[in-house]
């Protein structure tokens, strides 16, 4: 029997969709810079971000201090560079925690159904009825605990969305014949989930990872802005934005630059996440 292979219709189209639009390329570029800053920011900074020179309090940008200084005379550029770490680490933890936990639970709930499914669903229902940020404000503001408690609470609050997404993506896959065929072959459930379903929902997982990251970035920097996030003395974009707001007329850079960077980073990650989602996603609904 002769079998002439046919170039599937999908391929030409996917080649076209593969090309990154300019916005996504710019976003990726910035994210690369942001990651470098988050990891090496402290070392790359022209000054020690903690170095104080109170007599140079709130000076506008100059040759020595490109973004000027803050109230204690620390170099704003260095603080911004060092602040990238704090600004991005928490969200990274939230997104990672959410994706690992939520992904696993969602996969289990979506594939196994039954009790796990209804339990996670009830949990998600409850969490959906809560305005997340307000919950964190209440918890951190009243109960205390600071930044890492905020990260933990935020993870718990972001979980339901992630669970739902992974669950529905899994359900879409689980109904597909290839999974049913694997079940008919008597493969163990764990293997089916790992080898068959997981790789296929991975694009959804990665895209939601990025979107969760944005949510956490915005929430955590917002908390810092409200004075409930990063502790004083740790350079952080949200905190800089807040302290700088009182000094806007003297050195606008203190709040302008971190504010712009938060927005830029969040937008970049969203752009990348959207693009990945459109490009690779197979099932599930966008949050």
């Amino acid at each position, binding site marked *: *029997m*002769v*079998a*002439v*292979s*046919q*170039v*599937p*219709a*999908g*391929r*030409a189209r996917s080649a*076209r969709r593969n090309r990154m639009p300019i916005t996504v390329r710019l976003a990726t570029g910035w994210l690369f810079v942001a990651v470098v800053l988050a990891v090496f920011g402290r070392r790359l900074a022209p000054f020690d971000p903690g170095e104080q020179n109170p007599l140079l309090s709130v000076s506008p940008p100059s040759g020595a201090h490109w973004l000027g200084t803050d109230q204690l005379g620390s170099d704003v550029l260095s603080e911004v560079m060092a602040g990238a770490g704090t600004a991005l680490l928490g969200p990274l933890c939230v997104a990672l925690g959410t994706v690992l936990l939520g992904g696993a639970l969602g996969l289990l709930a979506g594939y196994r159904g039954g009790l796990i499914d209804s339990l996670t669903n009830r949990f998600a229902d409850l969490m959906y009825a809560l305005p997340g940020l307000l919950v964190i404000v209440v918890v951190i503001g009243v109960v205390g605990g600071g930044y890492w408690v905020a990260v933990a609470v935020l993870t718990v609050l972001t979980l339901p969305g992630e669970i739902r997404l992974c669950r529905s993506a899994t359900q879409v896959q689980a109904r*597909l*014949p*290839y*999974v*049913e*065929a*694997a*079940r*008919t*072959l*008597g*493969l163990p459930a764990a293997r089916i989930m790992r*080898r*068959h379903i997981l*790789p*296929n929902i991975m694009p959804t997982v990665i895209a939601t990872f990025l979107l969760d990251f944005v949510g956490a970035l915005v929430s955590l920097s917002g908390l810092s802005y409200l004075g409930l996030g990063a502790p004083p003395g740790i350079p952080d974009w949200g905190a800089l934005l807040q302290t700088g707001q009182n000094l806007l007329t003297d050195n606008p850079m203190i709040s302008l630059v971190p504010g712009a960077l938060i927005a830029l980073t969040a937008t970049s990650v969203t752009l990348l996440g959207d693009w990945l989602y459109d490009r690779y996603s197979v099932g599930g609904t966008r949050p």
Partner: protein
Amino acid sequence: MNPLLTVQDLHVQAAHRTLVRDVSFDLRAGETLGIVGESGSGKTVTARSIVAMLPEGLRASGTVAFDGIPLLGKRERELRPLRGTRFGMVMQDPFTTLNPLQTTGEHIRESLPRALQRSRSTAQAEVARRLAEVGLDPADIAKRYPFQLSGGMRQRVAIAAALAGDPELLIADEPTTALDATTQAEILGLLRKLQTDRGMALILITHDLRVTFSVCDRVLVMYAGSVLEDAPSAAMTRAPRHPYTLGLLLAEPPVSHVVARLNSIPGSVPLADEIADTCAFTARCEWARPVCSAGRPSLTVIDGGRSSACLRIAEIGQEVDVRQTTLGEPATSAPVNAGDPILTVTGLHKVHRTSGLGGRARTTPAVADVSFEVKQGESVGLVGESGSGKTTIARCVLGLATPTSGTIRLGPLDVSDPRRLTRSQRRQATQLVQVVFQDPYASLNPMLTIGATLGEALTAGGGGTVAELLRQVGLPAPYARRKPAALSGGERQRVAIARAIAVRPKLLICDEAVAALDVSVQAQILELLREVRRTQGTSLLFITHDLAVVRQMTDRAVVLRRGEVVEAGRTETLLDSPTHPYTASLVASVPGGQPEAVNRAHGA
């Protein structure tokens, strides 16, 4: 008489490739034209070009003139007065063509000519008249929403809406593929009747030659974006003038008798771009000569209103005619000597539970009191229209669903409740039954290579190597390294079969295994399944709604309707002299399947 519609050198271009090339034809008022072709051959794109409604990103060039008015390149504003009133279109899927938030009456009212819409009472009367015209009870139907109607009713509403503006030309793009065989026949009858009553021109697009012949005056055969043959129906059935047309005719399994060997066209359909300057069919044509690949032959008039794009038709015409009459002769089906039952289903019930809005559960009985058995080496067909519970039965047998009640035995094993099986019993069940699903595109994990998929299946039992498996299903060994995305539909279905037979199951369930494939490939797969059965002695449970396939593939058949068995027995008996009226109506609704049509085909 001037033609109503003229299509001249129609080209349709996507961003980087050609979809349709050099399509030309005329259509006179009141004439019925069929366009046939396998999936992706450009039928829909051609139809959409005619009504100037191409999807975004596609560009048409050439000439499309309706009643002398050129349509291509016209602005939306200029086209709108023509649409609905001069020409109309009905689309494939009746489930998606109606606005879910609007009543049927509203659909028709909004499509009526302005003058009739003005007064409420005239509009109402007119809507009622139009609904009655398509055989629906206006009093009841007009106030209903689409979701409250069956597929057939929806298609009737869509036809009524498309005809509300009294167009002179109606294009119907596969109006029946989504419907049951019986409904399909009704809709085709309706279209035919409306066409003659109104003296309206009709373009019927389908991939089913039998449907085309039963309805159309003339047929256009499309292949990879080009027209290969254009001829009156009768002439084409009698003596096709292109090897591809011949291949199509032969590949359709006859419903009237079993053929010893199902004819297929080797290979699969190329892209329009790959055949830019050769004969489109040359790669798959047994009569191909170097001259066929030298240039692109154009559609040439041969005689009596027939045109063909085959360069060598004059030389090979004789041979083609002979082939048409000799092949496909009835074969005597040897009665199988069936052994012990391998599958016994007794009193199977299955009720689906779905939670509706607000948490209230709804129940859908899918299967009710079904009993049947499949013996060792036997092939049994499960026949029935959509929703009759065929898949549900298969899933219960496979352990993918749990029956509400009833027992299922696989050889020695009771698998009525898959959750109760022990690990070893489950393993045993795996060795007993395997499955091939309908959709070749979703049947394989897109992330795994063919080799990995088959390798995984081999670990479940059976023994052998991936290369052996591939050879058994007629695929070259290097395919093991490919991902499913690089395979055609037919090839994927072969891999799915390879995966199923890897564990050497006693029973293979094929759930509409060929329904999604083109006729030319369908025959290949059916032949492969026959071979598997022959060489490995595997029993088959063949699920299908296609009576021709049942005829070719099964010894016995069970007819299902709304989850219940209405009739069961030997396939020949069942199809030749059905006792239950439902089976009879199924048989009667096969287009061109009546002995009379078959005789016509063989009489020449």
